[in-house]
């Protein structure tokens, strides 16, 4: 997978707590990315086996909204993502940092 800046931001968000499940909108806001940017990345990661997703188990009439789709890194995905992030950091010229999380990339 090409390690674009948006992908690295999404991975940073997911790697902050790999066991935590997040939904697409939440990932986008934490990474500072628009929803349209986030979902193709999530789909690609899911296809590569880095992510797994499931529908939220709620009763919509109690919550007052439909179930959300939650994403979480797989064990292998977390390992691969850390390695890929480290590789891309080492390639960044003069250790140039990524945009801070929550800011527009």
């Amino acid at each position: 997978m090409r390690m674009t800046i948006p992908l690295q931001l999404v991975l940073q968000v997911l790697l902050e707590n790999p066991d935590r499940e997040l939904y697409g909108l939440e990932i986008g806001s934490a990474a500072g990315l628009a929803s349209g940017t986030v979902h193709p990345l999530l789909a690609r990661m899911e296809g590569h086996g880095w992510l797994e997703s499931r529908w939220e188990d709620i009763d919509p009439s109690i919550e007052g909204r439909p179930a959300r789709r939650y994403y979480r890194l797989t064990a292998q995905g977390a390992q691969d993502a850390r390695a890929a992030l480290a590789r891309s950091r080492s390639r960044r010229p003069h250790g140039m940092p990524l945009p801070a999380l929550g800011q527009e990339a």
Partner: protein
Amino acid sequence: MPAAATWQRPPRWWARALIAASAAVLPSSARPRYEEEFIADLYGMSGGDQARYSLGAATHCFALRNAVHTDNQHCPEGGHDMTIRAHRPLRCLLNVRHDWHTESTEDGARYLRCRRCGKDETGPVQKSTNAQVAAHAANLLGSGGAGGGGL
């Protein structure tokens, strides 16, 4: 027993319409999932946020289609990443010439597939014998049209 909550602000009709239009370009297998996911995200948003969200989904719907399409094209063989390119060459797009080669499914069935665009010669993966694949390939090469010499 928890009391029934009041429903959060539902998506506006135009936001739903934009999401439906965005989902319409996705493969049919992925369409309901993403439509429901986007609609669920829209609940509780202000009108402005709904507009931003649904326009974002609409402008990136082809990227999502490519991502979903590409994810469906992983080859099980070899255990390495054989993702088919999302951008198909013109000759594949026009269906003029493909680079056919033989692949097998996890249960051993054989089928023909284009190396460049990932198209299956017989649509979805179908079970066929080696002899059938060989006959089919010979037929394709003999006709000189679609055969790309990949066999």
